[in-house]
């Protein structure tokens, strides 16, 4: 599929990766089979909290069984958490041991208690049924408030509390003072509902140990193979990098859930050495529901102090954040550094304080899911701003404008650590109002009323911090890894280019966007560029894709490597054309001697670099292949305005999204088509959270919404055409001016949806409704309001 026209920055180049997916030739982990491979079935705990013992005697003798492992067989390190958060009293977070296979106690339904390896998956499942498990149940801890006072016992006996850490940020005194003096106080209790990421490809892993070389290979569904190599190799299995290769081939969506190092990866890698055969595991969907890290799950009280004109004076936030039963890779950072630091939003609120207690419960571990912390922050800010406006009789638009950080205030230092580099929140709001036809809303509301329907409109003028980095900053905040990115740009002898990137594409379209960077910078068509990612043996290093960091960090690393390529190419060209390197200019892919008609193409130069007959050997090495690491100076700060319009049937409570508008500032746009696609997907997940999705546990710790029969996945008919636009302010600290677009849709939209629902119901006196706003919840709110009136 050749691309016509320009393939540089700003062109909606059709995706290079599409063809293989469209003809069924994608290569996902479960599509891979290794010679002499075995299949494994993970026997998982059916009890949420119990001491257990098991008898594998009968199962071990079953047909086709190769080997069964239990927790005590696997004497390896604990699955690590990548981020240490200290409590406000200075003590480090409580970090319970997390063995890949539970040894004698289980702490959530879904925890692995035995690993059955067999010739076929059916053999493994048959054998699993022969394992006799004896559970001695312990009281189950599900509710965070109950967990807090340890009344029902402990999730982990060895760490004396269910509180992982008690952390704070901001000036508590200033906030309390402002609240005591304020003309108006708005309060709100919100729950950010627990979600299940549900990438359409379930997780899968194949461990393949080669005894003759001592080399381990892990094929896995990961967003960051190098990170898995580090976490699994160094911390769990004690394998050095040079003996461990991690391959994340085509990956069918991640949304955060494939960042983390999971037990199954360690298990198949370790087991393949134990049995000296490849070991394959692929998750069922129902297994995914109880083993993929969940997202969100905060309970928060929030207080906003305003002066008599509606200007924000202070924000006070108290949050309980569910960690689940163990600390997943990034779990501790999500409700702290990715959450509380965002509480200024787009506003000049001068004093902010946030206290976060993270809590262990007998549930699946909770970690980053699209947006990670920022949707939770945005939700409570935009909900309480909405509520304050209603209470004070100020319009939703005016209260926001009144409090926006003005364009001339950048760089803007918030009271919660971050320094925003750029933004123009009025511009995105203005554009969104127009796109959503705000002026026509009253007429549409009247038309709905005529049909007996309620109509509402809701706003969210959000901000987020992404391009997750810089290493020095995250290091000071407890990150146990760096957050740079690495790229290598290899110009081949005939002038085509392969880029090796540490970013990982699992739907984001890097193979196209990154190729456009090369096209722009080196002046060649994207057809001449291949992007290679996902294999620790090919890629020098990488930190992977999450936190909307691929372009702002990974793309910038590619630019840095290209800068080195160009500098070297100029020297080669100067030598061959007998000019000074300073006089060589790169124009449209030609290295020209300024002011002359003499030039060389990139292909001419690369050929000279690999066939160095006429070459400056005393100054340069042959070849044209450069590598760069890039560690940014700051996060990037996309922001924007989402407007949702809903129609509600008061008789059934059914909420129909009638309009969803998003105008975002994601910085410089490389491929508008891909950016829009990212925003569409984010909006769908945001609307899904607001109206449909909820991971519900019963008091025994059983996940009630454990399949698509009960977990409401958004379908095409839940949505209308999205209206998407963008307004650009450039990021000031990267050369591309890019910010990031992967998460904005999911961050900005949930409060817009709920604000629209509340707006529709406000005439009845309803001032809050929790997510997801199911039809029954809305119907009940309407009934309660009617009964009150």
């Amino acid at each position, binding site marked *: 599929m050749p691309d016509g026209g320009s393939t540089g920055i700003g062109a909606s180049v059709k995706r290079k990766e599409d063809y293989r997916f469209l003809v069924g030739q994608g290569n996902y982990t479960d599509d891979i089979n290794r010679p002499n491979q075995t299949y494994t079935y993970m026997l998982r705990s059916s009890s949420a909290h119990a001491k257990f013992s098991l008898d594998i005697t009968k199962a071990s003798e079953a047909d086709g069984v190769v080997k069964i492992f239990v927790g005590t067989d696997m004497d390896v390190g604990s699955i690590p958490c990548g981020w240490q958060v200290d409590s406000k009293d200075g003590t480090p977070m409580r970090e319970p041991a997390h063995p890949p296979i539970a040894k004698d106690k289980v702490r959530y339904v879904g925890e692995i208690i035995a690993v059955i390896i067999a010739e076929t998956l059916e053999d493994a499942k048959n054998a699993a049924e022969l394992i006799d498990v004896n559970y001695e149940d312990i009281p189950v801890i599900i509710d965070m408030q109950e967990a807090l006072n340890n009344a029902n016992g402990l999730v982990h006996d060895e760490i004396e509390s269910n509180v992982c850490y008690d952390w704070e940020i901001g000036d508590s005194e200033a906030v309390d003072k402002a609240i005591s003096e304020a003309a108006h106080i708005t309060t709100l209790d919100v729950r950010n509902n627990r979600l299940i990421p549900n990438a359409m490809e379930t997780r899968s892993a194949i461990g393949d140990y080669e005894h003759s070389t001592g080399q381990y290979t892990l094929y896995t569904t990961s967003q960051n193979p190098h990170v898995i190599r580090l976490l699994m190799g160094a911390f769990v299995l004690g394998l050095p990098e040079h003996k461990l290769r991690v391959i994340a081939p085509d990956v069918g969506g991640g949304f955060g859930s494939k960042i983390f190092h999971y037990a199954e990866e360690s298990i198949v890698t370790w087991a393949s050495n134990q049995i000296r055969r490849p070991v394959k595991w692929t998750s069922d969907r129902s297994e995914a529901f109880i083993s993929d890290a969940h997202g969100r799950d905060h309970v928060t009280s929030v207080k906003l102090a305003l002066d008599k004109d509606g200007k924000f004076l202070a924000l006070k936030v108290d949050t309980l954040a569910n960690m689940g039963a163990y600390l997943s890779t990034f779990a501790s950072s999500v409700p702290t550094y990715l959450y509380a630091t965002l509480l200024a939003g787009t506003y000049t609120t001068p004093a902010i304080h946030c206290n976060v207690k993270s809590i262990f419960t007998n549930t699946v571990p909770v970690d980053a899911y699209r947006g990670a912390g920022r949707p939770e922050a945005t939700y409570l800010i935009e909900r309480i701003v909405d509520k304050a406006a209603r209470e004070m009789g100020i319009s939703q638009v005016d209260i926001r404008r009144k409090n926006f950080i003005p364009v001339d205030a950048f760089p803007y230092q918030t009271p919660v650590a971050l320094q925003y580099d750029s933004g123009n929140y009025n511009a995105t709001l203005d554009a969104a109002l127009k796109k959503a036809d705000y002026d026509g809303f009253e007429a549409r509301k009247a038309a709905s009323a005529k049909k007996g329907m309620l109509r509402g409109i809701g706003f969210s003028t959000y901000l987020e911090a992404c391009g997750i980095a810089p290493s020095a900053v995250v290091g000071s905040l407890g990150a146990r890894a760096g957050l740079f990115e690495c790229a290598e740009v290899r110009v081949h002898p005939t002038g085509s280019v392969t880029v090796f990137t540490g970013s990982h594409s699992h739907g984001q379209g890097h193979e196209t966007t990154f190729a456009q960077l090369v096209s722009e910078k080196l002046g060649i068509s994207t057809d001449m560029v291949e992007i290679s990612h996902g294999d620790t043996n090919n890629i020098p290093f990488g930190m992977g894709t999450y936190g909307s960091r691929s372009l702002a960090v990974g793309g910038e690393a590619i630019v840095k490597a290209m800068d080195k390529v160009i500098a070297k190419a100029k020297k080669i060209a100067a030598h061959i054309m007998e000019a000074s390197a300073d006089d060589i200019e790169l124009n449209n892919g030609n290295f020209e001697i300024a002011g002359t008609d003499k030039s060389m193409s990139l292909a001419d130069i690369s050929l000279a670099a690999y066939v160095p007959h006429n070459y400056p050997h005393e100054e340069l090495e042959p070849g044209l292949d450069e590598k760069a690491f890039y560690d940014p100076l700051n996060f990037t700060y996309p922001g924007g305005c989402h407007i949702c319009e809903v129609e509600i049937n008061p008789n059934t409570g059914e909420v129909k999204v009638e309009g969803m508008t998003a105008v975002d500032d994601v910085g410089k746009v490389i491929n508008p088509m891909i950016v829009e696609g990212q925003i569409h997907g984010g909006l769908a997940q945001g609307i899904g959270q607001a109206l449909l999705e909820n991971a519900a546990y019963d008091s025994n710790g059983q996940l009630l919404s454990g399949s698509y029969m009960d977990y409401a996945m958004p379908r095409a008919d839940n949505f209308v055409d999205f209206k998407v636009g963008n307004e650009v302010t450039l990021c000031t600290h990267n050369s591309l001016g890019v910010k990031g677009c992967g998460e904005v849709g999911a961050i900005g939209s949930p409060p817009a949806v709920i604000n629209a629902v509340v707006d529709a119901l406000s005439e009845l006196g309803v001032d809050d409704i929790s997510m997801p706003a199911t039809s*029954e919840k809305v119907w009940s709110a309407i009934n309660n309001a009617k009964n009150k009136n």
Partner: protein
Amino acid sequence: MYDLQYSKPSSVNDAVAEIKKSSDAKFLAGGMTMIPTLKARLSSADMLVDLKGSNLSYISVSSSEISIGSMTRHCDVASSSDIKGSLPALAKLAGGIGDHMVRSCGTIGGSLANNDPAACYPSAVLALGATVVTNERSLKADDFFEGMFETALNEDEVITEVKFSIPEKATYIKFPNPASRYAMVGVFMVKKSDGISVAVTGAGENGVFRCEEIENVLNLNLALDALNNIQISHDDLTSDMHASAAYRANLIREMAKQGLKDLI
């Protein structure tokens, strides 16, 4: 899925003979519930007897009656011009079961034999007073459904046909569960010469049921506003994570109110 054997006899008699051979054999119709259930090891069978070869897929319509072979797929009922002409509510119901791929496999007989409490077809069969014909006998709808996933079918008995008498008017209104898209509440309403009958699926603790509260009101007063103030009892209605009994009661009334427009 556990090991099993598979056979596809070429007649109903052969199928019944086949099923009698083993203690744990099951009939296989469209398989849209059966196969996922077997796959999840929630049930097992030593033998599946596929009815697809037994010539049970047909639709025949007379002036007063529609006969549908038990292996007739939802998509065939939904697209049948005869059914659309004489009993459009049934075509609409069939066209709203699952999704278009499920409708290409799932069958009326399979749906009725399974009697899922949230399935659509049982409401039509009950409200229309249809006759369920088996290899052994004819069963009146009232006698066929015996509670959630329970029917009057004996072991080794197989549905061969369903007969619907054509009413004056009928309608089906469904409020789907947002996750499964099964009926959270489905209301099938029929106007016949001898009165109104209304059957509700998705809501009953004991599966599909006739809603006498609505029938009584409408038999006295078939008017658009007749249901505006009635209260449906919550007793015996399902409460689950998706909807409380009270909410389901409300939905029954609201769906019936919508359906009423089609009966008048």
